[in-house]
């Protein structure tokens, strides 16, 4: 234990354990319920069997839509049904939106597709590489549409430019969702600091330092309206999965522990027990959504208010001159 780092980490852990002493496990009842149900299902070999009951509905829903296409729905309030690839890429990635490493600086576009970007903050900032010293890219996305528009807003990503050439990118905010009417604003911001991707040999690289110095950072925002965006908005808002006969479980988006856990459990059963009589076990959600483990898809009904039309607008703010006072690194 003579290593000072080892000692420090152990000390930190002991300190936290001491500080947390007396903390109770708030999710105890939920965890117990989940464990009991899963153990019971395993012992009885019923997970596959129980799910057979929903196969017909699941297969029906899956058959009605191809990946990425829309199916009709007779459910009240539901405008359509779409199948998303859970394990795949999202429609919200910035691929194709940001200029590549080594390319010329982007051109400012303050209005596009019925939206405008109104940047906030200073045109020149100094940023450090320690907590609290970051700069922020901030501004308002303003709708020019007379009618409510439901969109996902991705960004702002910061394109870092030196001498007119793209040399890196700052982190950006995953898509957030908003419904905007004319004049409504969506405040967007992201942090410049800590996590910077640096271009090396023309490609984004990790673990490379961006030297201290002055850079131009262009905020880039992607405003998206699509059926996929509508479905993800549904998922983000607290989609619910129902275990047959049991209470609802919060679930939803990629990374949701419940959704992942349920999918992982079912996938594990598939692996060890093989497919039951129902085949590949689509898993029905309370609102008619279906998770198909083997296909890695989730089929989601979405309401009309979340799909008001296709929007694909890229907004690019004026560059902010940022002086990095310390070496930046990709985290």
């Amino acid at each position, binding site marked *: 234990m003579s*290593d*000072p*780092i080892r000692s*420090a*980490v*152990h*000390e*930190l*852990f002991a*300190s*936290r*354990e001491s500080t*947390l002493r007396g*903390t109770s*496990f708030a*999710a*105890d009842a*939920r*965890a117990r319920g*989940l*464990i009991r149900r*899963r*153990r019971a299902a*395993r012992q009885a070999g019923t997970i596959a069997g129980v799910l057979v009951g929903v196969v017909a509905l699941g297969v029906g829903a899956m058959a009605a839509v191809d990946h990425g296409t829309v199916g009709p729905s007779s459910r009240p309030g539901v405008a359509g049904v779409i199948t998303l690839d859970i*394990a795949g890429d*999202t429609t919200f990635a910035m691929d194709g939106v940001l200029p590549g490493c080594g390319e010329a600086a982007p051109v400012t576009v303050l209005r596009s597709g019925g939206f405008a970007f109104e940047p906030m903050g200073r045109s020149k900032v100094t940023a450090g590489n*320690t*907590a*609290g010293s970051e700069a*922020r890219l901030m501004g*308002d996305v303003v709708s020019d549409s007379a009618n409510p528009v439901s969109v996902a*807003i991705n960004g702002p990503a910061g394109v870092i430019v030196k001498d007119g050439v793209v040399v890196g990118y700052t*982190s*950006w*905010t*995953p898509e*957030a969702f*908003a419904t*905007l*009417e004319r*004049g*409504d*604003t969506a*405040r*967007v*911001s*992201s*942090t410049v600091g*800590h*996590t*910077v*991707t640096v271009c090396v040999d023309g490609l984004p690289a*990790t*673990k490379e330092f961006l030297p201290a110095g002055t850079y131009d950072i262009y905020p880039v925002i992607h405003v998206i309206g699509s059926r996929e965006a509508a479905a993800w908005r549904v998922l983000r808002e607290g989609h619910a999965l129902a275990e047959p006969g049991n209470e609802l479980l919060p679930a939803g988006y*990629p*990374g949701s*522990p419940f959704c992942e*856990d349920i999918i992982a459990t079912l996938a594990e059963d598939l692996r060890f027990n093989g497919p039951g009589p129902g085949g590949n076990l689509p898993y029905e959600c309370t609102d008619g959504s279906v998770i198909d483990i083997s296909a890695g898809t989730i089929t989601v009904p979405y309401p009309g208010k979340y799909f008001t039309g296709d929007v694909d607008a890229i907004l690019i703010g004026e560059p902010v001159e940022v002086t990095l006072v310390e070496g930046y690194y*990709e*985290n």
Partner: protein
Amino acid sequence: MGSWQGFYDELAHARYPALLAYAVTLTANRADAEDLVHDALVRTFSKGRRLDNAVHAERYVRRAIASIYIDRQRKRASWWRAAPRLATTDSVPDATPEIDHRSEIANALAHLSPQVRAAIVLHYLDDLSVEQAARVMHVSVGAVKRYLSDGRGALRQALGASLLEAPDTTYDLADVVSVQPAKARRRS
């Protein structure tokens, strides 16, 4: 009461603070840590594995915490593969108060990448060898060595700065959209 419930009770009550502390050290985020402990307990006790005693069970749960955390970070990185720089935007430094150099260490840990932090925790807190940590993390030995090298650099710096004034860690991570209706905007 089945045997799993006895061990579960022990971990979910008496050992919960220790499990939470472990998860906070790994995630640098209290809310994520609580979720991780929950998920690890569910994963461990949902399976019909033989658990010899509470210590054995706790070892399983801690390993499950690490595994779930690593898997989740990997999935997240994969999901957002076009956005690798999102790696730490959800990593809010833990608000658990620390004293003296522990605050610097906690702060330094919080700002490591998830992979580097996991390597540090597995190697220094769980006392796993580099090879063992590589197996848990499903990465190469070289990758773990690199993570540890990066982590040690940051932690050494933090330890060296322990007598200096603690930096402000209460920065704003509210990278969210807030909508202001046009009417309200016109009033302001």
